[in-house]
């Protein structure tokens, strides 16, 4: 999706990428990225937490004007309150096993 954002920007559409994977985002370098240190699937927060969801949307949209150069990556200040991990289990990668 970072690749898509890069392409759209070249077509005159401003993009903001709200990512939960900081290292992956830093590699692909979308034009503007807000890193949110939440589990994948909770980019905008928890179910029912409308205040956080709105705040993250606002923080992302603020980057439209604030970003000064392509590839800017900002860290959203609040992180997830519990420890979380990532364990890929999908069959697409495991298909050759």
């Amino acid at each position, binding site marked *: 999706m970072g690749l898509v954002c890069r*392409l759209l920007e070249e077509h005159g*559409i401003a993009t903001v990428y709200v990512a939960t994977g900081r*290292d992956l985002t830093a590699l692909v370098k979308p034009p503007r990225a807000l890193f949110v240190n939440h589990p994948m*699937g*909770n980019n905008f927060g928890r179910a029912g937490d*409308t205040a956080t*969801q709105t705040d993250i949307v606002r923080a992302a949209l603020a980057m439209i004007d604030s970003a000064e150069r392509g590839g800017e990556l900002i860290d959203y200040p609040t992180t997830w309150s519990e420890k979380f991990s990532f364990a890929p*289990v999908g069959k697409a*990668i495991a298909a050759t096993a």
Partner: protein
Amino acid sequence: MKSIRYVDALNDHYTAMGNPPYRWTVNESAPLHRLDKPLEECSVSLLTSGGVSQCSMPAFNADARNDHRLDAIDRDVNATDFQIHDSYYDHSDADNDINCIFPVERLRELAALGEIGKVSDRLWSGFMGRIYNRSKVLEESGPDFAAALREDGVDILLAAPS
């Protein structure tokens, strides 16, 4: 807590499955399109890659590779009219509240408050993870998406990968 090291985790997973090392895309710079009008006048659209489809549509393939399917979603969609199929992340929260990954209700509220100009007529779900034929994105599905956004007069795309 420190951010998860997804690259290392996925490299380990690939290797354990007997695959050759994955060649990650590494970009040193990025384009930037600056807007010449304020946010209050902009049309904003949304894109999720989290296997999200409306209940009346077929489910996404939860284990898909190279799936360039892209669904258009009406901006006035009922926020409970979604199903999620993707085996690469925990979407239990998003199953209960789609705004966790696709904040359509939050965006509509910001439009009502006048903080953005409008929510675009069409919102989007597609470009699921594990697209390895990147040239097709650059030559076909990406430009087609850009054309659809331009047709709708979209100024800003808020993109949330899962």
